[in-house]
C-alpha cells in the first residue's frame, strides 16, 4: 500500500483526536492564541454589520487570525475531498442505516447527506428547519454559551475551566434530546 493510499482511508479516532488536540499547543506556541472557532462568526458580524451594537464594537482586525484559520478549514475540506478522498461509502452502525432509510435517506457518499441538504429542498419545510433553523441555533447558541466544541469542550476543559465542562455537558444534552426525541419528527416532514 502506498503512502497516498494509506492516507486516503478514513482515519481512526485515535489518529484524528490527538491531531485535533495538538491544535491547542500549536496555536498557543505560534501566537499565544486560544483555540476557538465560533468567535469567527462574531468577528464576521463586527466586520460586516456592527449596527452600533456594543457587542460588535471592538477592533475585529486584531482578531483577524481567526478568520484566516476558518478560511484554512474551508480549504482543508476542499483539499481532502478533491485529492485525498476515499471512494467507498461511510461505514455506519446498521441500526442507524435502518432508521435513516425509514426517512428515505439512502445516499452515504458525502459528509453531508445530499438527500437532506441540497438547494432544491432549501424551501421545503424540512429543508428550512434543518438548514436555516439549525444554522441559527448553532450561531445563537454558541455565542450565548460563550463558545463551541473547540472553545469550551477542547480549549476550556484543557485549561481546566469548570464553566466549560458545564457548557460541554449542555451541548451533549441538547444534542441527545434533539437527535432522539425531536429530529425524528423533523425528518418525517419529508
Amino acid at each position, binding site marked *: 500500500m502506498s503512502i497516498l493510499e494509506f492516507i486516503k482511508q478514513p482515519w481512526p479516532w485515535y489518529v484524528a483526536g490527538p491531531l485535533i488536540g495538538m491544535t491547542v499547543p500549536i496555536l498557543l506556541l505560534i501566537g499565544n492564541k486560544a483555540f476557538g472557532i465560533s468567535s469567527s462568526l462574531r468577528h464576521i458580524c463586527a466586520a460586516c454589520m456592527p449596527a452600533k451594537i456594543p457587542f460588535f464594537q471592538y477592533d475585529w482586525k486584531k482578531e483577524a487570525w481567526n478568520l484566516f484559520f476558518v478560511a484554512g478549514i474551508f480549504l482543508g475540506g476542499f483539499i481532502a475531498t478533491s485529492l485525498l478522498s476515499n471512494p467507498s461509502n461511510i461505514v455506519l452502525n446498521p441500526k442507524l442505516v435502518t432508521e435513516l432509510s425509514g426517512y428515505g435517506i439512502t445516499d452515504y457518499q458525502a459528509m453531508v447527506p445530499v438527500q437532506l441538504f441540497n438547494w432544491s429542498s432549501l424551501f421545503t419545510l424540512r429543508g428550512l428547519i434543518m438548514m*436555516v*433553523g439549525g*444554522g441559527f441555533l*448553532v*450561531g445563537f447558541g454558541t455565542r450565548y454559551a460563550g463558545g463551541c466544541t473547540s472553545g469550551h469542550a477542547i480549549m476550556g476543559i484543557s485549561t481546566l475551566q469548570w464553566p466549560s465542562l458545564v457548557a460541554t455537558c449542555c451541548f451533549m444534552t*441538547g444534542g441527545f434530546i434533539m437527535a432522539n426525541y425531536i429530529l425524528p419528527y423533523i425528518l418525517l416532514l419529508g
Partner: protein
Amino acid sequence: MKNNIKYLLVGIAFGIVFVKAEVISWFRIQEMFRLQSFHMFGVIGSAIAVGILSVWLIKKFNIKTINGEAITFTPKTFNKGQIYGGLIFGFGWAITGACPGPLFAQIGTGATVISITLISAIAGTWVYGRFKDHLPH
C-alpha cells in the same frame, strides 16, 4: 497579513483531519447522539486529553511562544448562558451535524448549500449580540 498565513496553514491541516476522520459527517454526529458508535467520543476525548497534557507541559516548563512571548490563559467565568446557550447549540449541532468549524469544512467538501446554514449561523450570532442584555445570564 503575512503574520496570519501560519493560521491559514494550521486551519488547512485541521480541515483535512476533519474530513479524513469523518468528524464533519452528519451521519457520525447522529451515531454519537444515538450512542451507536464510540468514534466521536474517542475523537473528542483524546483531543481533550492531548490538550490537557500540552497545557500542563506549557505551564510546568513555562514554555514561551516562538517569538519569546509568555503564554497567557484567560479564565472563563460561569454564567447561566453556558447552560441555556449550550442546550440551544446542542439542538443545532444534532440538526445540522456541524459545529461552527465543521460548517466551513462541509462547504469546502462541495456541499455549497451549507453556505446558507453558515449565513444563518452568522445571523444567529448577530441576533444574540442585539438582544444579549435582555437574555438571562
